[in-house]
């Protein structure tokens, strides 16, 4: 096909957007709303995941060392623990540090009295604080640590982690189901909209076929038209999402106390996903709309 013909077909596609402006606006709205629904669901799920991961990252296993263990043995234990798979990092937490922290934590008048009873003797044990890489595999890791000598006891949030892992899996499945349903519903609505937009031009398509136009010559303007509406929907959905999300975060972040109780440090900042979101919206809008429109022309091209 000549460049001049491509140029003509491109212009024709753009002109069709204006000529069929009511259907164009209807398609634009339907596509934008569909993209927004999917986009906001994804953001909701991403934020929930961030919260769950935040809680997960706060997990800490504390290994108390038997009283009387010397420095060489402690150092050897630290090396052994560090080399265990699934241990992300290990920090030695001395009994002196533990006492100091305890004093700092208890900032009331009774605390001084309490520590005066303790006297020079420090009743707290030395310990290791460690973080687990894959929280779902915490049980075998703890079993391996338990086999080491000189370990007095281990404190770990195993039950909580089990609940958290279950919750995470549940959220994963539910969000997948909701997303799949949303995408399916959106595709049905969008395909109906593009079919309606092509339907009113079936006469035009039939005439083009009768005067000898090839299928691709007829389809290209529809493709251009669909793609333009798709890109425009992507831009519109991006603008609404960016502004809406920012405003929502502002409102929700006004009082962080409630969120802190739930171990939520903050929401995903807009700049962390903005460009991915814009590109995703535009690409999804363009592809769905362009192919949806072209597919809708198929039955009228059989003349």
């Amino acid at each position, binding site marked *: 096909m000549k460049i001049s*013909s491509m140029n003509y077909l491109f212009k024709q596609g753009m002109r069709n957007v204006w*000529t069929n402006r009511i259907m164009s606006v209807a398609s634009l709205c339907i596509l934008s709303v569909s993209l927004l629904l999917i986009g906001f669901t994804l953001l909701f799920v991403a934020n929930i995941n961030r919260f769950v991961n935040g809680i997960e990252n706060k997990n800490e296993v504390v290994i108390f060392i038997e009283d009387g263990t010397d420095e060489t043995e402690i150092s050897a234990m630290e090396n052994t623990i560090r080399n265990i798979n699934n241990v992300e990092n290990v920090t030695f937490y001395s009994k002196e540090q533990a006492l100091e922290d305890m004093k700092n934590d208890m900032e009331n008048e009774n605390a001084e009295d309490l520590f005066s009873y303790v006297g020079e003797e420090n009743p707290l044990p030395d310990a290791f604080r460690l973080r687990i890489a894959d929280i779902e595999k915490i049980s075998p890791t703890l079993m391996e640590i338990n086999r080491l000598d000189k370990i007095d006891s281990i404190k770990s949030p195993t039950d909580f982690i089990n609940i958290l892992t279950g919750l995470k899996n549940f959220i994963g499945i539910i969000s997948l189901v909701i997303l799949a349903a949303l995408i399916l519903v959106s595709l049905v609505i969008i395909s109906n909209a593009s079919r309606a937009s092509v339907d009113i031009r079936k006469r*035009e398509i*039939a005439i083009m076929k*009768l005067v*000898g136009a090839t299928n691709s010559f007829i389809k290209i303007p529809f493709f251009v038209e669909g793609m333009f509406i798709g890109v425009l929907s992507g831009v519109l959905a991006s603008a609404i999402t960016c502004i809406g999300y920012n405003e929502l975060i502002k409102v929700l972040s006004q009082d962080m106390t409630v969120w802190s109780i739930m171990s939520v440090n903050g929401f995903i900042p807009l700049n962390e996903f903005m460009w991915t979101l814009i590109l995703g919206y535009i690409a999804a809008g363009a592809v769905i709309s362009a192919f949806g429109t072209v597919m809708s022309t198929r039955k009228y091209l059989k003349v």
Partner: protein
Amino acid sequence: MVELKNVSVTYSNGVDALNDVSLRINDGEFAFVVGKSGAGKSTLIRLLLQEIEPTSGKITVNGFNLSKLKKNKAHKLRRTIGFVFQDFKLIDTMNVYDNVAFVLRSIDAPIKYIRNRVPYVISLVGLKDKAKAFPHELSGGEQQRVALARALVNDPQLIIADEPTGNLDPTNKIEILELLKAINSCGTTVMVVTHEHELVQYFGGRTISITDGRITFDDYIG
């Protein structure tokens, strides 16, 4: 050239639309095809456009053997034929110029050729001043002239006009048929399908009559 050999068409509902029809219209001929509603005229046109396939028989149009022509190559056949319909079949969203130029654009004709050819053909049918008008701004007669210009623009071997005067007043009927006669005098084969016997009597020439799916008359009158 149009040739049908023992062509029959039976629709899926059992109706025999054409029954063992044999017919030949030579290059450069002008022929009327007449018949009442339901006689089989529309079926004949749909066959020639390859919109439907015959139940039996062989059809050749402008050198294309239609039984061997694949559906996705139908555009090659249609580019050798100019069509004129009773309801004009103009694209409402295009002006006169674009309606006519569309045919040339769809065959990838050079821009220069389109810019010369389209105004020439539009002026041939007497619509020089209406090139920018849209179909809804034109009278029935003018719309049919646009359809004629579109049929002519690609310099087709054959023009098929299906009830081209059906929606026109008597003056326009005569004018459109005179235009078709003029086109024919330049060497283009013209086939006019009509149920208006008075017009056929007025212009005369080869007349093929179809009754109940069969050719009952094929001769020159007037």
